[in-house]
């Protein structure tokens, strides 16, 4: 069973009186533990795809099965629960809450999920150690460097031990060196079995992924992994 199964996905936006097809006729399968880079020019539908995978957006047509469960028909609150437990987000602009400390930002998903304080502290302490942030626990985001901020954001994305991490240009606001660090961190997570989907403009970063999806005009233009799957189908067929 694939972790992610998109079939016949269509997402339309109404801009004035013209309809824009952000996604059209999209079929996609991502297995658990895969490392996928989504690339393509601006407006090709990368972000819409990521929002859709993250249950922040709903398709107009088509079904999205996450871990074999149709999540397109879930109520908003049920989707929130799925986001809380199964999906972690990493954003280009970090999206840390400025008035909360690094530790509080990391704990935020657990706070929202209602996990007891003792358990939260335990997990945050571990996460701070894992991500080399022990000395920065009580710092506010504006007292952290860009790399540190993104590490806090990644720690936050993983704190609920999700099956899927969605990263939208995670290195977009970072210099080459810190970007490299962040990518290594994400890849290390993938190495532990977390499925990683990265949207990026960066060819070099995209090339590091085991599977590349290239989007254009809301359609999948190229899929480096699709060949393997079709091969598999041919073999099994």
């Amino acid at each position: 069973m694939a972790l992610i199964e998109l079939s016949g996905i269509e997402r339309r936006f109404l801009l004035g009186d013209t309809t824009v097809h952000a996604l059209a006729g999209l079929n996609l399968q991502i297995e658990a533990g895969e490392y996928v880079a989504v690339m393509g020019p601006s407006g090709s539908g990368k972000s819409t795809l990521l929002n859709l995978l993250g249950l922040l957006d709903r398709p107009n047509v088509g079904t999205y099965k996450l871990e074999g469960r149709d999540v397109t028909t879930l109520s908003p609150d049920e989707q929130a629960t799925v986001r809380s437990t199964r999906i972690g987000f990493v954003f280009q602009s970090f999206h840390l809450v400025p008035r909360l400390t690094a530790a509080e930002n990391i704990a935020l998903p657990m706070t929202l999920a209602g996990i007891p304080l003792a358990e939260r502290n335990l997990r945050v302490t571990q996460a701070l150690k894992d991500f080399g942030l022990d000395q920065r626990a009580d710092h506010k985001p504006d007292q952290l460097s860009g790399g540190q901020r993104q590490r806090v954001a990644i720690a936050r994305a993983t704190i609920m031990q999700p099956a899927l991490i969605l990263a939208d240009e995670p290195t977009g606001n970072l210099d080459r060196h810190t970007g490299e660090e962040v990518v290594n961190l994400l890849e290390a997570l993938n190495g532990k079995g977390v499925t990683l989907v990265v949207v990026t403009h960066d060819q070099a970063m995209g090339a590091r992924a085991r599977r590349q999806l290239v989007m254009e005009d809301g359609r999948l233009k190229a899929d480096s992994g699709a060949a393997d799957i079709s091969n598999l189908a041919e073999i099994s067929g």
Partner: protein
Amino acid sequence: MRLTDTLRFARDAATGYPMRTTLSVLAMSIGVAAVVILTALGDGARRYVVGQFSSLGTNLIIVLPGRSGTGGFNPANAITSTPRDLTIDDAGSLRRLPGARRVAPLAVGTSEINYGGKLREVMVAGSTAEFIPIRNFELAQGQGLPEEDWNRGSSVAVIGAKIREEMFGANPAIGQLVRVGDRRLRVIGVLKSTGQGLGMNTDELVIVPVSLAQAMFNSNTLFRIMIEANSRDAIPGTKDRVMETIKQRHRGEEDITVITQDAVLATFDKLLGALTLAVAGIAAISLAVAGILVMNVMLVAVTQRTGEIGLLKALGATARTIRLAFLAEAAMLSAVGALVGYLLGQLGAFTLRQFFPVFPAYPPDWAVIAGLSTALATGLIFGVMPARRAARLDPVQALMKH
């Protein structure tokens, strides 16, 4: 999200924007303080008036000559246009009435007092021995008017504190002869100074026997008859009997007005109570305005924190969680505002009492409770709309607003 976490989150959010938090807390506190201070003023006025009336005497029934305009037009009134006077004998007839403990006739006029070359105008009250206890006056020196036949007054006078001071200074007043109008009177008592109150200012009063006063002013009418009933319960019965007795004496004509202190008191109590309520209502408008301000501030907060709301949604917050967080923040703003306002109001009332010690400016409990709960309720009600708006935000749109 757990309740303590929701509250902590809301608190951090509120303190994260000190300016707008301070402003909305201030608005709310001004509203609550207005309710507390204005009702303290209103209720203080009520207590002040009630207190003043009580100091007139207890269980008092007062007979006035002439009929007040109740009962509509009566042809008999049209013919006998002038009411029959109240006389000393009318007052005397009430002494044996069941339910009446004390009766004092009262005739008043102005005259001049003269002693040792000093002359001043005074208010003269002609009455009897029982006048002083009925009116709760107290004597500083000497004694009150003697018990004697009401129709033959001895030449004595009880004077007010200010008159004693002005006429006699440091010299003893008791036993001295003073001239009041064309009479020579011996001072037998001095009243305690009471200051300004409702009714007469006793400090500038000279009390003489009633028949003497009538002779002095060359009239045989009374200004009032004062009756002290045995008890509060005896007031209505005694009032009816007084009416009946005088009516019989006046050949069946109801040409007097009998008022009870109770009735007057109740009227004032009701009137000033209503006034306090009205003032509280006006102050409550400022609370509503404060509530709208809290709503405004919360709407701004939702706009300001759109990105954050999007993030919370992405991190798995349900609509309910977000609604509660924003509602908790609004409630917190109004609760703190209400508390600060309550303290400000109490401080204001305290200051008022310091500057005007005779004025009991205490806010009534009902007003404090109503003020605080209105503040909290408006804060919550006006917090609902922004909270719903926050909860309904589209996460994708919200995240882009970062």
